[in-house]
């Protein structure tokens, strides 16, 4: 019976997908009205504000707190994680099933990775890395959802360098939902001159506006009235944008990983037989001696040269701690941002079968990046807690 139901489910899903594909393909055939037009979304490195607390969006949110679209995505991911884990862990069953089963196996896999790196200390480093993994994983996978990065408020393009489009003429007056017209990107006169004849006739058939004169706009750039005359078209500010495409989010994660590495490193250097503030201070001192290793200067005679080498090597080790922040930040940001740009461009060029391959690649990249972020956090934390000064202590004891 369950097998039969599974089969029915599968048939229904496949039929639904085929129906969607058929609809989109049918409505985008030439000659038929375009129901789902595809425009190239605005590619912007910095996140766009979608709301503003304490100021006005019209004034670029000066003096206020902008709520950017990546912040919206971050909050959605947070809410999702909290909701999923609360519902799964509220009434835990001894024999897990469903969501609880899935989450338990996921946590088990992550814990196995922590154990592989840190052995019996895995319990201490596991929460930081696993939290980062879950957040990054869900945040990365948001870019695969339809509507993220593409649905949002339409606004007039004011700045240069953003490709604006004309509104779809079939949009009724005052409608809550509008489409951009992909047949009519707003272009300048000199770019219009470089189009081929076929492209020019395509624009004429779609009843596009005349190309804008940029020279006049540039002359009138200082006079604000002259600037307003130029219609640069419309662009979309997405309401939700993948959180990892914001460098602030990845920097924050990197700083969390960095800070917890330092704290765990100090904890690992606190002497086991002592307690209190004095022990913590000793831990900090021992931990810092990794980065300012002046113990070698105490060696007699020519050994001081090697002491100097040790000192510079330890300085480099300290520098590498900070380089890790940069590398954490840009690794995640670069991968996911490049992924979204790739999805945009492929959807614009090959709207139908093409994006499937890209989305598959991004599924892989999103998982790998989350895994790498977690593993590197584990490895760095574990390395920070390793006590290196073993022979130094012997030397001190000898003197």
């Amino acid at each position, binding site marked *: 019976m369950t097998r039969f139901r599974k089969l029915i489910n599968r048939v229904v899903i496949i039929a639904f997908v085929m129906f969607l594909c058929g609809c989109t393909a049918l409505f985008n055939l030439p000659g038929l009205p375009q129901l789902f037009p595809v425009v190239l979304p605005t590619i912007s490195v910095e996140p766009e504000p979608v709301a503003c607390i304490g100021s006005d969006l019209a004034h670029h949110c000066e003096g206020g707190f902008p709520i950017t679209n990546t912040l919206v995505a971050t909050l959605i991911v947070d809410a999702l994680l909290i909701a999923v884990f609360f519902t799964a862990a509220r009434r835990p069953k001894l024999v897990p099933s469903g969501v609880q089963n899935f989450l338990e196996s996921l946590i088990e896999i992550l814990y196995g990775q922590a154990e592989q790196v840190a052995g019996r200390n895995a319990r201490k480093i596991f929460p930081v890395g696993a939290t980062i993994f879950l957040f990054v994983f869900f945040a990365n996978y948001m870019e695969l959802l339809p509507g993220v990065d593409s649905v949002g408020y339409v606004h007039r393009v004011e700045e240069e360098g953003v490709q604006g489009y004309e509104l779809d003429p079939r949009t009724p007056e005052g409608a809550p939902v509008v489409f951009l017209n992909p047949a009519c990107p707003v272009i300048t006169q000199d770019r219009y001159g470089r189009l081929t004849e076929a492209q020019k006739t395509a624009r004429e058939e779609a009843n596009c506006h005349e190309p804008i004169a940029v020279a006049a706009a540039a002359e009138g750039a200082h006079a604000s009235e002259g600037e307003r005359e130029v219609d640069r078209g419309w662009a979309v500010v997405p309401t939700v944008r993948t959180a990892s495409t914001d460098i602030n989010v990845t920097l924050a994660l990197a700083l969390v990983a960095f800070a917890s590495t330092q704290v765990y490193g100090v904890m690992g250097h606190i002497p086991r037989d002592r307690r209190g503030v004095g022990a913590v201070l000793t831990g900090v001192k021992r931990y810092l001696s990794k980065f300012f290793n002046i113990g070698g200067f105490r060696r007699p005679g020519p050994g001081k040269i090697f002491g100097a080498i040790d000192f510079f090597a330890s300085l480099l080790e300290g520098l590498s701690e900070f380089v890790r922040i940069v590398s954490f930040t840009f*690794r995640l940001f*670069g991968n996911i941002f490049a992924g979204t740009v790739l999805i945009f461009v492929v959807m614009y060029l090959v709207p139908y079968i093409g994006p499937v391959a890209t989305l598959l690649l991004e599924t892989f990249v999103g998982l790998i990046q989350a895994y790498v972020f977690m593993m590197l956090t584990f490895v760095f934390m574990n390395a920070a807690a390793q006590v290196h000064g073993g022979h130094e202590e012997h030397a001190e004891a000898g003197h």
Partner: protein
Amino acid sequence: MDIATATALAKYLGAGFAMIGAIGAGIGIGLSVGGAVQAMGRNPDAASLIQTNMILGVAFAEAIGIFCLVVSLILLFVVQA
């Protein structure tokens, strides 16, 4: 060639040149994965351990390529010419 065209040209050329650095990342990833696959062939029991370390190594090498990509993307989408 006026100054605006020259800046635009330099912008796109710079973005292209920045990606030259990806060669190094590609070689590095190829070497580390090649070594890991050989090691896995010789000692299949250690495959999971090798795989973990391989992914870490690949992530380090890839970071360099991603830096190039970020520089290139900043030139393309942030720098106003």
